[in-house]
């Protein structure tokens, strides 16, 4: 089973290479992309089952033993993220194939997309801090290309912001790595976990905050999120969907991993994280309310939702971290679905601005259904998945006596509902105010079957999360138990 651990990284990279070689045939490229991502999904599920049964798996790439070699570790959190991530990547790829635009017109789309998949998988699997930096860069470089594909004016403008802020975060990450390496003499995460305890507590707290800043830029935490709602909406909707679903969550994953593995109760910046969580939730949702564009509203909601995950993590109890993990699973599915639905709205309605849309409840009732289910789920309406996950977080918050944050998260839920209803009435219910708005053109006549099918599948998947909430909560609790206990992880890497 250990041999399977590097597969989610190697397969997409190989696929990307082959995809460049067969660049002349779009059909062959598509077959490669879908085959590879299906295989990665299967491998991830197999790993999840194996890890959940037998404990973490670790492998040393290059044959050097643990503190020196490049370690890949698959524990419960990693495999949960891998599974959900590869399912999203696969569904969005199918959607991108069905959508006129980016995928059809650019030879490189499929291979860059596969490189992105490899980078995401490597970020989850790596057991080495420097390798995490490299994986982030693989993922980000692919995302720069996907974001600016086509080279339109708006894309270049927002792409610049995105690249500059990411490069800045990378420079900070290198600086943090250098300081950590100078202090401890290792970058292996399991090794760091032990050596970090030998440092003075002030230094440890400094590192903890530094790592929160580095990954907070990527995750979109307050006050480091301003690049996010500006840059995401300009990309093609399939690309935005995968960015929204996955990339920021890789940042959240890195925060969860580093905070739980490196630091103990005395040095974790729990209060700081709680304050950040509250501010992220509130500012994100208030920003969303002010917007007029479907994609921009949804982008601000990414920020707001990140706050919930950080809230769960900042409690540093098994219930809190488990709720955060469960929330990530729900959020990845629902957010991706919403952006895919947003793409459908744009495809059929010809615009993503609320002021130019309207009356789609009669012209496109199917889209209304695939939009309203994840929208209500995002707001946390029972019995959808958002209700179950928010309940888990609020329950954990009440147990930990964080009443102010519980109050804020309930308020933010209400505001989320308000902002979702704004999209609902603007796009679907209200009659179209501007009869001479942009013509839908030939898109109205095309049948975007490949766009609708993955969206519907994801809607069903989000319903399935609500139905299977019991086992999923138990799985998240086991994953959170591993994170806070660390022993299984350390034993797997440093036997």
């Amino acid at each position: 089973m250990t041999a399977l651990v590097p597969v989610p990284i190697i397969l997409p990279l190989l696929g990307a290479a082959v995809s460049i070689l067969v660049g002349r045939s779009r059909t062959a490229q598509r077959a490669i992309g879908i085959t590879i991502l299906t295989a990665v999904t299967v491998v991830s599920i197999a790993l999840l089952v194996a890890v959940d049964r037998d404990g973490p798996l670790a492998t040393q790439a290059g044959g050097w033993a643990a503190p020196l070699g490049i370690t890949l570790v698959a524990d419960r959190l990693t495999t949960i993220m891998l599974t959900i991530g590869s399912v999203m990547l696969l569904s969005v790829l199918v959607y991108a194939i069905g959508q006129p635009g980016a995928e059809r017109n650019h030879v490189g789309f499929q291979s860059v997309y596969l490189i992105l998949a490899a980078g995401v998988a490597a970020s989850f699997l790596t057991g080495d801090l420097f390798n995490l930096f490299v994986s982030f860069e693989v993922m980000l470089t692919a995302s720069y290309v996907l974001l600016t594909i086509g080279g339109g004016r708006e894309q270049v403008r927002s792409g610049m912001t995105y690249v500059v802020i990411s490069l800045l975060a990378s420079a900070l990450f290198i600086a943090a790595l250098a300081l950590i390496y100078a202090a401890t003499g290792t970058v292996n995460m399991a090794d760091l976990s032990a050596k970090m305890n030998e440092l003075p507590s002030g230094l440890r707290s400094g590192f903890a905050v530094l790592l929160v800043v580095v990954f907070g830029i990527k995750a979109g935490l307050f006050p480091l999120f301003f690049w996010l709602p500006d840059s995401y909406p300009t990309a093609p909707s399939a690309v935005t969907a995968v960015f929204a679903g996955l990339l920021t969550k890789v940042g959240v994953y890195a925060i969860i991993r580093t905070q739980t593995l490196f630091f103990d109760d005395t040095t974790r910046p729990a209060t700081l994280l709680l304050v950040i969580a509250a501010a992220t939730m509130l500012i994100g949702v208030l920003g969303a309310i002010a917007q007029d564009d479907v994609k921009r509203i949804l982008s601000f909601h990414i920020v707001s939702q990140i706050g919930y995950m950080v809230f769960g993590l900042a409690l540093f109890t098994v219930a809190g971290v488990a709720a955060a993990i469960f929330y990530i699973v729900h959020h990845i599915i629902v957010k991706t679905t919403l952006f895919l639905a947003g793409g459908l709205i744009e495809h059929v309605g010809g615009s993503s601005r609320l002021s130019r849309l309207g009356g789609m409840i009669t012209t496109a009732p199917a889209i209304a259904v695939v939009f309203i289910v994840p929208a209500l789920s995002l707001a946390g309406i029972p019995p959808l998945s958002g209700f179950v996950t928010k309940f888990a977080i609020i329950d954990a918050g009440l147990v930990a006596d964080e009443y102010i944050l519980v109050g804020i998260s309930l308020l933010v839920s209400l505001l989320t509902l308000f902002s979702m209803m704004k999209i609902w009435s603007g796009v679907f219910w209200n009659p179209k105010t501007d009869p001479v708005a942009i013509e839908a053109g030939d898109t109205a006549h095309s049948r975007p079957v490949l766009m609708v099918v993955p969206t519907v599948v994801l809607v069903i998947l989000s319903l399935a999360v609500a139905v299977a909430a019991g086992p999923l909560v138990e799985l998240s609790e086991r994953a959170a138990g591993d994170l806070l206990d660390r022993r299984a992880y350390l034993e797997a890497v440093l036997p």
Partner: protein
Amino acid sequence: MTTLLALTAALLFGIGTYLVLQHTLSRILIGLAFLSHGANVLLMGSGRRGRPPLIGSGSPDLFADPLAQAFALTAIVITFGVSGLLLALSYRSWILTGRDEVEDDVADRAIARGGQPDKEVADEEAWHHDATIDRDRTPQDTQPAGPG
């Protein structure tokens, strides 16, 4: 020696931060280069000093730490690639807008100005931006240039 490296890194970070805060794209690019150089110098300083780490050239205890150098090399290669991409992007931005400046977000400006949901003015402005790729500043376009 370590103090000198630390001072160099601090100086590079300082210059980099100043340049990144400017309004001109080319300065931001150079600033980012300074910032990553600073980070790389810091990375070089994080390992032990010593002789070149060559097998057979003496006791391994006297060797410099090769891992820190390997890190720095990797980081340099990555930064080099991304800087290349950024240069290409800013060239593209210059082709499209004719200006070497960071642009404001059209939607942000619209919301800052009115707060009303329907902003046809902003739309027309955006459309106007897209349609005319001229190198001249129309009065509507003029924004206060940053310091420098």
